[in-house]
């Protein structure tokens, strides 16, 4: 479904991605783990066209998307839940969700999806008229995921969904991720600091170091891998 071939991306003077190649098949949950600053977020930003790669190619369902504008990429069905949630603080919960469906015109379907996310996160339904900025961190993360789901993405990119959240909320969020993947058949590309959690939920994983992919395998084998256990699982 998504294929990155030797992607190189730069931030100012710094080369953040030094030739990333990876594939994600339809229906999978694939996780990308690695240390801070390894280039995980940059990888997602490159896919979304926010920080377009300088070299290399990215294909989505066979179509090259590495030269596309961000809004075009979204319209193809790639949606991101960025790090730090980035809720529109002065829009209400409902308006935030509405923004998620910005590129869609099918009113009835939008309504259905709205009901669906409210069923996933009942708390959002309760707060539907509250400004996004007044939600707590956990609720914001739920809203961010819901907003992305409102675009009815075929590929959902999740960046550090557990960051700064209480253990209980983290658990809830990961359950939802699994649920969305199985119920909606949404392919998920998950970037996560907490390798333990990520590998538990994912089918496959990539390990990233210093802007390069150093390892890839099924989630189970990665969990079993001695190196991974030492460096990322802290065991």
């Amino acid at each position, binding site marked *: 479904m998504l294929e990155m071939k030797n992607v190189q991306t730069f931030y100012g003077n*710094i080369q953040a991605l030094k030739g990333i190649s990876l594939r994600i098949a339809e229906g999978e949950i694939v996780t990308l783990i690695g240390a801070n600053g390894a280039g995980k977020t940059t990888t997602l930003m490159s896919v979304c066209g926010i920080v377009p790669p300088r070299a290399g190619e990215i294909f989505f369902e066979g179509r090259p998307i590495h030269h596309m504008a961000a809004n075009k990429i979204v319209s193809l069905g790639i949606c991101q839940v960025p790090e730090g949630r980035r809720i529109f603080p002065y829009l209400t919960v409902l308006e935030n969700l509405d923004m998620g469906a910005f590129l869609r015109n099918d009113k009835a379907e939008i309504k259905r999806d709205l009901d669906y996310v409210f069923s996933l996160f009942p708390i959002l339904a309760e707060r539907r008229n509250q400004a996004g900025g007044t939600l707590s961190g956990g609720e914001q993360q739920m809203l961010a995921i819901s907003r992305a789901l409102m675009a009815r993405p075929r590929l959902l990119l999740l960046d550090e969904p557990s960051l700064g959240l*209480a253990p209980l909320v983290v658990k809830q969020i990961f359950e939802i991720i699994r649920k969305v993947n199985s119920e909606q058949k949404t392919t998920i590309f998950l970037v996560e600091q907490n390798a333990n959690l990520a590998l538990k939920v994912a089918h496959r994983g990539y390990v990233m170091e210093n802007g390069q992919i150093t390892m890839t395998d099924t989630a189970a084998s990665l969990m079993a891998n001695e190196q991974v256990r030492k460096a990322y*699982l802290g065991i």
Partner: protein
Amino acid sequence: MSPALEVSNLTMDFGGLRALDSIDLTVNHGEIVALIGPNGAGKTTFFNCITGIYNPTAGDMRLVSPEGKAVRINGLKPNQVTENGMARTFQNIRLFQNMTVLENVMIGRHCRLRAGIPGAVFRPPRVRKEESRLIEDSYRMLQKVGLEKYVNEFAKNLPYGAQRRLEIARAMATEPFILLLDEPAAGMNTQETKELDELILRIRNEEGICILLIEHDMKLVMSLSDRIYVVDYGRKIAEGTPGQIKNDPAVIKAYLGEDIDA
């Protein structure tokens, strides 16, 4: 054990909303105390109240230095709180990004220096000495947190984990006797978290600084803390040693969930 920070009956209202509801909390000298609770429970508000960013609606807050000098910090400005010996870090890193690592630490020392405008212009020997000592002291502080190799880098170019540690170093440069850490492990991976654990312990043991931290990483909290406070909806729901907290049903229900490793 004598108290370093005593907070009693702290209440904070925002408009009609009660963010903190009569919280009592004490941190003793030599202790590491954790404050945990769900997102939006009021932990950061609590920090903002005791550091002078917000003025609490009610309650009493006192700082007691190791020498026994007690100061009521209600209504003090943030910089005055810092001068009285309490320093903090921030949940989302707030370094001076366009300044070097060394300069960041030097600024932390600001309130312990005396040079004024005439001193700056005429630069008498006293000021010269102060400045050169400042640079050396700052460097030593960086050595303590293991950042000396970055000394001349710009803060924004540091790796994430190092930025977190620089924040701690900067806070330490204000010569506090109590240090507040707001989610110091957020965004760190397991390795970095382990190093942070060691650093915090070292700060307590070697510098004799007591620590109050907010953190979601339960492994870190449980291994570090002497005592833990749990808040939910602005109210204290539990208080005790890690062992007690881990098994407190109210805490499990509101915050931890069943499986703590997750």
